[in-house]
């Protein structure tokens, strides 16, 4: 059987090779055609045939108009906002007078601890006079962005005044407190840069960090060891240190906890690892330091070492708006690339003149700072033994922060308990206190609590009254 196969194969091969080696059978156009040329020609024809055929792709079937119509009809959107339940409607107390240390709420006079009026400038005569002058000269609004005839000479005067007060070359004004920090951060940090930020920063800083699209690393709240570890980790992993900008973002006095950042330690770390600092001094400008110049004055750090300082003026300076200061390069860069500065109307001129008057007042009366410090110390003392609440802020911070000793179970019940404490304190003892409110968009995980904003114009009796009221109400409501 095998032999027969071999024979058949041999004879077939002989037959094929005879054709291959056949002498020239034909001469076409002077070219002798050997047998193998025919086979090669057939091969070329087969290859060309395969190449010209379409390759197999699964057919693409785009949706027909009718199918799209059906899908559009079937689609049901979610409601724009979730259902509002009864307990979600919260009406804040309505003031009927200026937000000074004593205010009128619902016809009654209350002691006001909910306004960040640290130097007691609300209702100050000189500031009111300068505002009246500005209103009569310039009207209320400035009717234009800074680039298009919205720059009024009071803005330029205010910028120079603040720069001279702090000792920096130049400063730039923004028209709203929280828009300052979330415009400054994206102006300097772009995609690919590295930012190391404290995990307790408030929402505006978080929004700025998100909009900047840089890599953000958080370190534990006010923990210098954690900061050093993160800086070490980030520097080790970074590939091109000359091309990547690196920043540390901290607040001087944290709004969410009342802690103060240790600036000398941070400056030491920044110089070791070559980072730049962005410092938000909204609650410490006009409060810390011997002359109110902020955290750098308080810690004895020369102001040139801090690269970018921002602050909102809605706290100690009792006006509105914000500013940012630093070297000439830092300030000039913002005039064209900071979106909150370029694309928004400028600060109303009467607020700028109020800021100038407030800084003047602070320069002439530095004694108001020591009054503020004694008030904070008195309140701290009185509140150290409130049943159920514990003090969580720094002794020098004008935001006195009380948090619950033991949580009642869920976050919601905690908020309800604190709200009822504040409500009872207002209704029964006429003391207006604020609880921390967190937006659902806020990523900060620090505990909530009660916040008292101490002012230099609070009298001793006000402070004692507030402490007594809190002790009484807390004893009633916290079992």
């Amino acid at each position, binding site marked *: 059987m095998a032999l027969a196969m071999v024979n058949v194969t041999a004879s077939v091969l002989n037959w094929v090779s005879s054709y291959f080696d056949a002498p020239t059978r034909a001469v076409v156009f002077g070219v002798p055609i050997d047998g193998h040329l025919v086979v090669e020609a057939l091969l070329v024809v087969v290859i060309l045939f395969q190449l010209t055929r379409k390759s197999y792709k699964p057919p693409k079937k785009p949706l027909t108009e009718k199918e799209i119509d059906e899908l559009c009809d079937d689609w049901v959107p979610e409601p724009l906002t*979730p259902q509002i339940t009864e307990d979600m409607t*919260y009406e804040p107390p309505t003031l009927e007078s200026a937000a000074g240390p004593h205010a009128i709420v619902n016809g009654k006079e209350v002691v006001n601890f909910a306004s960040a009026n640290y130097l007691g400038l609300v209702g100050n005569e000189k500031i009111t006079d300068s505002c009246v002058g500005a*209103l009569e000269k310039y009207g209320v609004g400035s009717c234009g962005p800074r680039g298009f005839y919205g720059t009024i000479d009071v803005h330029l005067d205010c910028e120079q005044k603040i720069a001279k007060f702090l000792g920096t070359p130049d400063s730039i004004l923004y028209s709203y407190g929280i828009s300052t920090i979330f415009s400054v951060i994206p102006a300097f940090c772009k995609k690919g840069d590295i930012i190391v930020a404290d995990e307790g920063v408030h929402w505006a800083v978080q929004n700025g960090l998100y909009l900047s699209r840089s890599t953000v690393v958080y370190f534990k709240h006010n923990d210098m060891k954690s900061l050093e570890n993160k800086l070490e980790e980030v520097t080790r992993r970074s590939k091109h240190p000359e091309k990547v900008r690196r920043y540390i973002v901290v607040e001087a006095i944290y709004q969410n906890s009342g802690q103060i950042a240790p600036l000398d330690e941070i400056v030491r770390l920044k110089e070791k690892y070559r980072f730049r600092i962005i410092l938000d001094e909204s609650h410490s400008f006009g409060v810390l330091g011997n002359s109110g110049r902020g955290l750098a004055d308080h810690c004895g750090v020369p102001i040139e070492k801090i690269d970018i300082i921002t602050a909102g003026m809605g706290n100690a300076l009792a006006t509105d708006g914000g500013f940012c200061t630093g070297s000439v390069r830092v300030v000039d860069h913002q005039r064209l690339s900071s979106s909150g500065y370029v694309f*928004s109307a400028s600060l109303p001129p009467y607020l700028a003149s109020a800021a100038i008057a407030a800084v003047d007042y602070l320069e002439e009366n530095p004694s108001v700072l020591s009054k503020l410090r004694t008030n904070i110390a008195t309140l701290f003392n009185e509140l150290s033994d409130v049943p159920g609440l514990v003090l969580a802020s720094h002794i020098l911070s004008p935001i006195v922060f009380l948090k619950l000793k033991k949580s009642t179970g869920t976050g919601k019940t905690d908020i309800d308990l604190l709200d009822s404490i504040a409500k009872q304190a207002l209704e029964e003892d006429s003391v207006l206190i604020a609880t921390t409110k967190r937006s659902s968009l806020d990523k900060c995980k620090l505990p909530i609590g009660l916040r008292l904003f101490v002012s230099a114009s609070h009298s001793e009796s006000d402070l004692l009254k507030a402490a007594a009221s809190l002790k009484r109400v807390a004893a009633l409501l916290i079992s």
Partner: protein
Amino acid sequence: MVRLPYLTALTTLLSYGILFVFGHLRDFFRKIFDWSKSNNLQGYAPICLGYEDFYTRRLYLRIQDCFGRPISSAPDSWFDVVERYSNDNNKTLHRTEKTTKCLNLGSYNYLGFAAADEYCTPRVIESLKQYSVSTCSTRVDGGTTKLHTELEELVARFVGKPAAVLFGMGYVTNSAIIPALIGKGGLIISDSLNHNSIVNGARGSGATVRVFQHNNAPHLEEVLREQIAHGQPRTHRPWKKIIVIIEGIYSMEGELCKLPEIIAVCKKYKVYTYLDEAHSIGAVGQTGRGVCELLGVDTADIDIMMGTFTKSFGSCGGYIAASKEIIQHLKRTCPAHLYATSMSPPAVQQVISAMKVILGEDGTNRGAKKLAQIRENSNFFRSELQKMGFEVLGDNDSPIMPIMLYNPAKIPAFSRECLHQNVAIVTVAFPATPLLLARARICISAAHSREDLIKALEVISKVGDLVGIKYFPVEPVKPNKVEHLKKIE
């Protein structure tokens, strides 16, 4: 629509090309000269690397004196512009004490409330004395005064919605509201020429963003159909919700949006609409209630209406008007309401008084007169400019008039020449507009009298001839046609 003549496009591209070449040359020489000087950055990366700020350094700084001109009086129809000089070729500018009185064609002062007003200013000063400059507190803590609640009710009544909420700044209103309404899994479709605050708010929300062609309702329908049918990218799950964001008057084009067509498309596909009336509230419409009144759209069809008080009311701040549920939800979640200082009480009083004047509730008809004046002024000015041969954008009744300049050299020429003749004009270039389409933007106000407008037209015509921007000259009537008619008779 912009009709760009071919020759102009060519010369503009050539001009920009020359500027870029010179800029790069100067950068090259700067690098060589700085090689020898020591680098004092010591291991820090520079604030701007490489060509990130090329446009600022080499193009913008040359014409820096046309922007950011300081003024020393109220931004009324005539104001004082402070003169500046420079010792180092426009790199730094210094103020002088001298001022020039100029006609103001640049400020957003549509109804003339910018300067001290006889009804508004006494009330503002009174509220200043009662409530002081600022409340130093957020709205939810202790910053809500009676004025704030009064203004919220008044705004809701004026705009025609059930409820409203106030914010201290218009830019923050957009940036902080959009993240509160929509998040990951949602879709935002915005007009291609929307303002930077809307773009920032959309980016900050985490939702997917798509763009539709400016004012093009059929293209919007096409984008909507495609997006609903395909769902979220890569997972193809259905979208949670879709919001379409449009503006009432676009500030760089002066055009009104095609509201009825766009609202019809949105209702058909069950998407939510967000209308930003920053420039149109108070300035257009029979009684000043904005584009809805002008174009005949029912306010109940638009889900959220946003506006600012800076332009027509001469104050600062913004508002959102919507149904009661949406406003209550926003008051609980919006970060700008929970964390930001509340609006300054004198500014609130200014808006209350201005709205009362516009509604006629102050007992006079000044409001109606102002509205009629601005409409008349805008239409007169626009038709005269078009007769002169300028290329003017924008619709009738809109108080914003951009005049196309195109060439980069004409921007400073036009601006400086007009300032010499005591007319203050705003010129806009890249990056607020596309690179080739630089323009001068005029904002008409109800405070401009007929003589002011005629003087402005004379100056603009003279300077326009000098600079060469009358791109579409109107043909004069041919005399032989008249003769032909006479012969037939």
